[in-house]
């Protein structure tokens, strides 16, 4: 039994480091499929943290939430994305407006910024600095992915990364929100994804591409 406790402690204290790695890999990836796999890995890490929190705080509801993450974010959403990519038949390039080197420097700066932002809260909340900075970094990177990628699919993925960050923030500071709210949020994400998927199809059908930077010509 002791091993499980050691493992939970370590998951909570050092898994945020792996989240930073997924962030860095996500901003340099050139293909949509790589980003989707990375999102799945990122959600799996967050699910592990949720399981660890549930175990440590003895919260039955948190187990349900963690299981929901595994089902929805690790399996269902990535599969839906792969389905979208193969149905839309667009090029696999993410159409980044920054070069990989620039992106990685920006992501690095945002990680540093998130550490600076949480520094004043570290004393009041009894969690390690890494675990506090990771959600902020996820939120910032999600926003960055949304503004720097021209493909509509990548903007959806950026929104999901941002949502992961918000969930993780709730998890690390208050051990998760009540179950009803969590289920509501998951439902929201799924409906949002459905709507965006439909919207992506419409964009593709009307303009024959998914490059949102070309949509500006609509003004007039």
């Amino acid at each position, binding site marked *: 039994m002791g091993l499980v406790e*050691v493992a939970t402690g*370590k998951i909570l*204290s*050092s898994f945020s*480091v*792996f989240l*930073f*790695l997924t962030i*860095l890999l996500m901003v*340099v990836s050139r293909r949509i499929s790589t980003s989707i796999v990375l999102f799945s890995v990122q959600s799996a890490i967050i699910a592990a943290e949720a399981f660890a929190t549930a175990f440590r705080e003895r919260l039955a509801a948190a187990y349900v939430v963690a299981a929901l993450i595994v089902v929805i974010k690790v399996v269902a959403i990535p599969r839906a994305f792969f389905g979208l990519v193969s149905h839309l038949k667009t090029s696999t390039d993410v159409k980044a407006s920054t*070069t*990989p*080197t620039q992106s*990685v*420097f920006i992501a*690095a700066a945002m*990680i*540093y910024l998130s*550490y600076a932002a949480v520094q004043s809260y570290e004393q009041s909340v009894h969690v390690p*600095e*890494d675990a506090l900075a990771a959600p902020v970094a996820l939120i910032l990177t999600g926003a960055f992915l949304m503004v720097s990628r021209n493909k509509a699919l990548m903007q959806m993925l950026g929104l999901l990364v941002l949502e992961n960050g918000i969930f993780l923030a709730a998890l690390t500071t208050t051990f998760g929100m009540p179950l009803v709210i969590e289920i509501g949020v998951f439902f929201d994400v799924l409906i949002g994804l459905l709507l965006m998927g439909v919207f992506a199809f419409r964009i593709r059908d009307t303009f024959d591409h998914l490059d949102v930077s070309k949509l500006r010509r609509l003004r007039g």
Partner: protein
Amino acid sequence: MRIALNILQALILILGAPLVRGIIARCKAFLQRRQGASIWRPYSDLAKLFHKEDLVPPTASSVFRLVPFGLFGTTICVAAFVPLVQPSALLASRGDFILFVYLLAMGRFFLSLGALDGGSAFGGMGASREALISSLAEAPFLLSFVAVAILASHADFAGMVAWTLQQNIFNVSAVHMLAFTSLAMVVIAETGRMPVDNPTTHLELTMIHEGMVLEYSGPRLALIEWSSAVKLHAMLALLVALFFPWGMVSNVSAGAVILALLLYCAKVVLLIVLLAVIESGMAKLRMYLVPDFLGVASAVSALAVIFTMLDKR
């Protein structure tokens, strides 16, 4: 006893290097569903080359003849820096990581000179590309060592490895993870592995390392091939020593040494399998994308150095 172990480490690095190549080739063959050659094949290749006639281009000067020996000499020095089974090595406490990096650079300098002196067009092209890649890889190479050195407050490998050994295996620090990532990318670029250079090609316009050794034959080619194998093995061993040193012996005894050796083999084979998967799964980058690849490595290593200020553990 310790000195004997140090000599044993250097011998393993030098004599085991062709085996590492053999295992990589075998793994790649397995992943590509080919039969593949035996893992001992590189040894017989070397033996064959040592018995062959040495042909030197008529236009080449004595530089061309001396280069393989210089390269082999610097590579052996490099191998004497890397700890394998105990947190020390023959030269590990005599020189720091900066000497290590520039000994490798010196070997590359010799090889480029030889390639230019050989007089073929491919040699010159390969040498200029090698110079570009190594100058771009130098910053992340040094910075990732700097990050680990700051944490360990030692500039020599023996001190760094001894410090890491005392840490908890589960406490993954951001610095180590970032430094490992960037160092792994540098290792791929420096040893001419797949996304940067294709080690199995011999007649392509994109070749880098193979282009440089095109004019060499016989025993000199054997020396060059052997030293590039030693370089690859030393870099992999360094990744293991700096980031996964747990299992190394601190008190020398026969049982502990054998256990440490077995663990070392397991860790290197794991890295080799990872390398083979990367090599089989990725296409070679265009030459103009290589600076991007190394730019990412530089950014990650710079981030690792910045993170040393954040987590003072």
